[in-house]
């Protein structure tokens, strides 16, 4: 058993990989070893995996319905054996709502990352590589976005698009790409004059090919790190929009919206706002720790060995 694990490790760490697959897996394994050596990062990873599991199994895990409450008998009950996190003003079980809310949180976070990161990456690398007026135009547009506070800009977009969680996601995505563009551009500027990019130019590669296949891979790791670190901010912005009534609409169990509706009872029935608040705190922490760990594991400057 241990010898099998031993040879597998040797195969992964081989200095002479025999196939494309082995080279790739070996590289991934080295990154993973560097990541897993960081205990806090593993805590972060554990939190995020737990979030994924909870979101996937929400229907099974939640003891009650997240939307239908017992108005007659179960309004604003404190935490107890029946209702671990208590109930809200409509008699709904808060634990169940928090569990179902994890889906919406993931939905927001993933969608924003999927929309904003590629836009930022593309704008940044193209601007950085092309230079000249293309760079000037793209970066001035970026600056305009950066000049407004994120939440204010998101508010304006939601106000224009109409309230709702999909529009909130869109608004957050539209406002969060500029920092990614900045990072990608800075990274591009450091690699565009390197000999290995010159070598590809000398093969006759088109500028688009150079950007997509040679420059972007160099920017991706710092971008991944930044995106995971931003996840917490995205959750909070979504929660903020929810709180202001412009994000998720009732009875959707979105955490921010839950805090907003629990605000009225914060002094007497603290658990109504406290439980989703705590969930946001934990998940944000998880993403932050994960991002920090990824930064150390993926940073090319920390040596590729």
């Amino acid at each position, binding site marked *: 058993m241990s010898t099998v694990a031993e040879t597998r490790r040797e195969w992964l760490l081989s*200095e002479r990989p025999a196939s494309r697959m082995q*080279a790739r897996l070996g590289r991934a394994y080295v990154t993973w070893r560097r990541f897993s050596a960081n205990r806090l990062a593993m805590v972060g990873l554990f939190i995020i995996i737990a979030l994924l599991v909870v979101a996937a199994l929400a229907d099974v895990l939640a003891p009650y319905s997240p939307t239908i409450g017992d108005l007659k008998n179960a309004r604003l009950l404190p935490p107890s054996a029946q209702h671990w996190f208590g109930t809200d003003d409509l008699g709904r079980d808060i634990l169940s709502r928090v569990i179902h809310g994890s889906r919406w949180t993931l939905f927001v976070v993933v969608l924003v990352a999927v929309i904003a990161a590629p836009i930022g990456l593309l704008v940044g690398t193209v601007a950085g590589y092309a230079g000249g007026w293309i760079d000037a135009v793209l970066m001035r547009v970026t600056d305009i976005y950066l000049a407004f506070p994120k939440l204010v800009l998101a508010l304006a977009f939601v106000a224009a698009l109409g309230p709702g969680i999909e529009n909130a996601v869109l608004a957050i995505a539209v406002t969060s790409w500029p920092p990614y563009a900045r990072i990608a551009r800075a990274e591009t500027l450091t690699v565009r004059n390197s000999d290995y990019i*010159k070598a590809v130019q000398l093969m*006759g590669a088109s500028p688009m090919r150079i950007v997509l296949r040679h420059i972007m891979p160099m920017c991706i790791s710092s971008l991944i790190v930044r995106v995971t670190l931003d996840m917490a901010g995205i959750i909070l912005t979504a929660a903020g929009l929810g709180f202001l009534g412009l994000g998720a609409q009732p009875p959707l169990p979105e955490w921010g919206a839950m805090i907003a509706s629990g605000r009225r009872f914060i002094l007497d029935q603290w658990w109504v706002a406290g439980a989703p608040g705590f969930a946001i705190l934990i998940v944000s922490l998880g993403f932050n720790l994960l991002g920090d760990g990824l930064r150390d594991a993926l940073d090319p400057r920390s040596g590729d060995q």
Partner: protein
Amino acid sequence: MTSMLRVDQVKVVFDHFRALRGVSLDVAQGESFGLVGESGSGKSTLLRAIAGLVPVASGKIAVGGQVLGRKRDKEFYRKVQMVFQDPYGSLHPRQTVDRLLQEPLAIHGFPDGEQRIRRALDEVGLGSGFRFRYSHQLSGGQRQRVAIARALIVEPSILLLDEPTSALDASVQAEVLNLLEQVRRDRKLTFLMVSHDLAVIAHMCERLMVMQNGEAVESLAASALGTRDVSQDYTRRLLKASEGFVRT
């Protein structure tokens, strides 16, 4: 002898700094031509101007009789390839040797990639054991071999060599120089080689040009260096310096 590469009164200006002040040279097909000089002499700039990496302010460059325009086309890069000085900087840090060699084949649309990669690695003496390594898993000499394989894989007729061995240890330098000579003989390549080391140029080239401050000092046959048959003081100084330290 037919002219393979002709450079005519080429000038290069960087922000008012005149890096090249009108340099001309003519390299015959199959010839190995050397450019020698110290830093700031413009020897590397000339190489990069030919490759299209720096803009030419005035003058003409012709490859195989065809005058080059402002933009180099794909056809040019099939004919002319370059090997850089720093083997640590010229290979993409996130790509395996396999990926590095595939890229030129993909760009130029070669059909039998698999075979060509294997042949190219064999030709530079690396073998398939190196094919899926990342550049950080290679030594300096091995990296330079990969760089040479990458340049040769599109079957160019001119190889531009920018101090290809100055970052390597002496024993590795000998191996790489031998390899370069070997491929030149096998493929009947034309070399344009830049170096600060007179001995390397004398060993590798048939003719050479000494450069200083963006200008040609003199052109001579490599054999003239051995017999000290040089006409310019600057060349003489370089020759003397290459002999090592003399206590005065």
